């Protein structure tokens, strides 16, 4: 049977066994989940299979952990929950994954088929609820369809533009005997890359005087980091990245400039404004990048490559739009570049101009290194953890500081919730990262607001002995909201002051280590000690309550309305 993936004799199996076998056949190693009534048959079958289950303390954390695992490993993350509240608790995690194109399969138990539609105990229409932010969803009512549906869910999650897929399985379907005989492989064809646009793109790259490459998450998702580097080095074109594109190109590469957007470097925003060609690959012109879209890169021709054709022209109308996988497209463009002589003058003057424009930012960063605050904390973490560090950030001011001041030299070493901006993401996502790369140092940087949203996961971290280090940048505020209130609401700090636990006592109660650090303490020594200590440590850095993230382009405005630090 040529069209079947497996050619073995199947014994009769239950729906739950079929689910577990599908997971095994997909090469799944870890599941992140939380059991409950409607998913009990699945959990009953689970111990009979070599699948490792991570019991989180909340279903939202299970989804984020699966997300972190998927982002770090490049494989499909799997999370499991029961019906009703279990399923609704997954929702934020699914939306987070959808916005950042992360491949995830979420398995939910559902009440039995006879009980469906009758407002039964713990019944909820999770399919209907998650329609807007799943790539696809299945309600499997036929036990024979369970195995192929599970396999199909993985295909969909990782195919094309990746995303989360929900598989909702009624309890009696998990119990039922199945009679399916195999699996018809349904591989998706790779996106086409034979496009006249590719040759045109190569021509535009050759002739541009002030070009920039703008690389997004699609480069990492498509494993196209090498092609990005080859293209940049072949053309000498400077590279900027989106927030999620950070670490797709090494920060210490001479062609790397930084990242643009609302809190991106001023020099990078100005570079985009002055560019004559923007080669945008694996990105979607998020409003945090463009600000006022009609004023974005006004003088530039735009080459836009994305695996999702519906992204082309959604926000910015491209000069050349190419619907293709980033890796294949850049390979093809490199081929076109090699087949024709370079006639243009190159962009050496442009590179020199950009290097000069970055000098003030470099000087500011240098001078801030000696002052107690976020930059000093980041420098200390980088020094203690070394080049293999994987950094997971939460959402808020610290996220921007980390993106601005950290130097990411390792591929795919920066993990954050970009599109949805989900506070509470970092701690559980870091668990997924730690399971994917147990040998690599994993640090979380979070604010004192976000860390409390999934703080219960310290128990999971302790149970599995995960070696995750946490730096809380504690300013006693929901810092980013407070900053907006300062700038746009006359310093009316409505409900942004926030308190938290004593992290030393909290970590002690979980059997973990914690330490409070204030101005005047030795930051470097504290971070080094945390790094050397086995197991999870939380460092609670008390920082300036009114420290701000600069620069800032107010929402919906352009680079010309950028707010810069005093004296910048």
């Amino acid at each position: 049977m040529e069209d079947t993936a497996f050619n073995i004799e199947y014994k009769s199996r239950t729906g739950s066994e079929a689910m577990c076998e599908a997971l095994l056949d997909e090469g799944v190693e870890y599941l992140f989940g939380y059991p409950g009534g409607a998913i009990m048959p699945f959990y009953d079958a689970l111990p009979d299979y070599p699948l490792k289950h991570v019991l989180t303390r909340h279903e939202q954390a299970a989804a984020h952990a699966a997300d972190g695992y998927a982002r770090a490993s490049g494989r499909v993350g799997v999370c499991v929950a029961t019906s009703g509240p279990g399923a609704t608790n997954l929702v934020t995690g699914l939306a987070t994954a959808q916005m950042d194109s992360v491949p995830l399969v979420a398995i939910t138990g559902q009440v039995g088929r006879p009980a469906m539609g009758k407002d039964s105990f713990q019944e909820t229409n999770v399919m209907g609820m998650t329609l807007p932010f799943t790539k696809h969803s299945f309600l499997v009512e036929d036990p024979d369809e369970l195995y192929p549906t599970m396999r199909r869910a993985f295909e969909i999650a990782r195919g094309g533009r990746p995303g989360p897929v929900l598989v909702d399985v009624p309890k009696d379907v998990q119990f039922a005997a199945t009679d399916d005989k195999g699996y018809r492989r349904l591989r998706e064809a790779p996106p086409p890359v034979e496009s006249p646009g590719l040759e045109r793109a190569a021509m535009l790259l050759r002739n541009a005087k002030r070009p920039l490459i703008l690389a997004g998450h699609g480069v990492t998702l498509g494993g196209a980091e090498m092609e990005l580097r080859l293209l940049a080095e072949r053309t000498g074109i400077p590279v900027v990245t989106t927030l999620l594109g950070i670490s797709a190109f090494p920060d210490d590469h001479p062609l790397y400039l930084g990242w643009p957007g609302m809190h991106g470097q001023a020099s990078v925003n100005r570079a985009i404004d002055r560019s004559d060609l923007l080669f945008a690959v694996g990105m979607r012109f998020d409003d945090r990048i463009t600000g006022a879209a009609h004023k974005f890169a006004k003088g530039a021709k735009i080459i836009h490559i994305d695996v999702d054709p519906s992204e082309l022209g959604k926000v910015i109308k491209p000069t050349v739009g190419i619907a293709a996988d980033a890796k294949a497209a850049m390979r093809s463009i490199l081929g076109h570049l090699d087949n024709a002589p370079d006639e243009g003058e190159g962009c050496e003057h442009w590179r020199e101009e950009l290097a000069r424009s970055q000098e003030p930012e470099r000087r500011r960063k240098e001078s801030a290194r000696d002052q107690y605050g976020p930059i000093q904390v980041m420098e200390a973490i980088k020094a203690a953890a070394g080049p293999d560090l994987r950094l997971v950030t939460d959402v808020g001011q610290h996220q921007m500081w980390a993106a601005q001041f950290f130097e990411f030299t390792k591929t795919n070493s920066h993990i954050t919730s970009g599109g949805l901006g989900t506070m509470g993401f970092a701690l559980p996502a870091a668990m997924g990262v730690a399971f994917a790369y147990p040998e690599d140092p994993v640090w979380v940087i979070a604010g004192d607001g976000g860390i409390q949203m999934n703080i219960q996961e310290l128990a999971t971290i302790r149970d599995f002995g995960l070696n995750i280090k946490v730096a809380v940048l504690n300013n006693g505020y929901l810092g980013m909201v407070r900053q907006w209130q300062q700038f746009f609401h006359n310093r009316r700090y409505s409900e942004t002051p926030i308190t938290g636990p004593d992290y030393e006592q909290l970590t002690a109660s979980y059997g973990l280590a914690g330490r409070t650090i204030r101005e005047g303490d030795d930051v470097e020594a504290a971070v080094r000690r945390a790094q050397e200590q086995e197991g999870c440590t939380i460092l609670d850095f008390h920082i300036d309550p009114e420290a701000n993230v600069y620069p800032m382009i107010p929402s919906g405005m352009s680079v010309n309305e950028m707010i810069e630090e005093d004296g910048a």
Partner: protein
Amino acid sequence: MNTMEVRFTGGMLALNRLLMTLQNKRMPVAGFTLAREAAGNSGGMRATILLECPPEPALRYTALISALEDVSEVGPAETIEVALISTSKEWRTAAESAGIEAHEDDGTVVASGAPEKVEDFLAALGDGVEDMVRLGPLARPEGEARGGV
């Protein structure tokens, strides 16, 4: 106005997903008509969607719809509208001059044709229309969805 015909399977869940996508992506939907596929086509459905936007975004929306797993085919379509009319007024002359097909079935006038021609026909009948059910616009059944993404 751009017309798109979407063929899909998966029943109510798939229809729900399609509607949610239209709403979620803020597509400028000016009309939406649902019909069943012919028997033997595995219970599929056809939705004819009128988009009030220039052709370029319509193409992007078509690409977006085509990415839905339940959708088997999507593309631009020529449309037809059907009107079931109760009238005591003489309707044959109006139908002829509007250039539509019309016949009477058990007291109900069944009129069909291009939407703008049906509109002309109804305008000619004016107050003579006592009751009416309008079906469509629907993609013409003989036409395959063309130029799909």
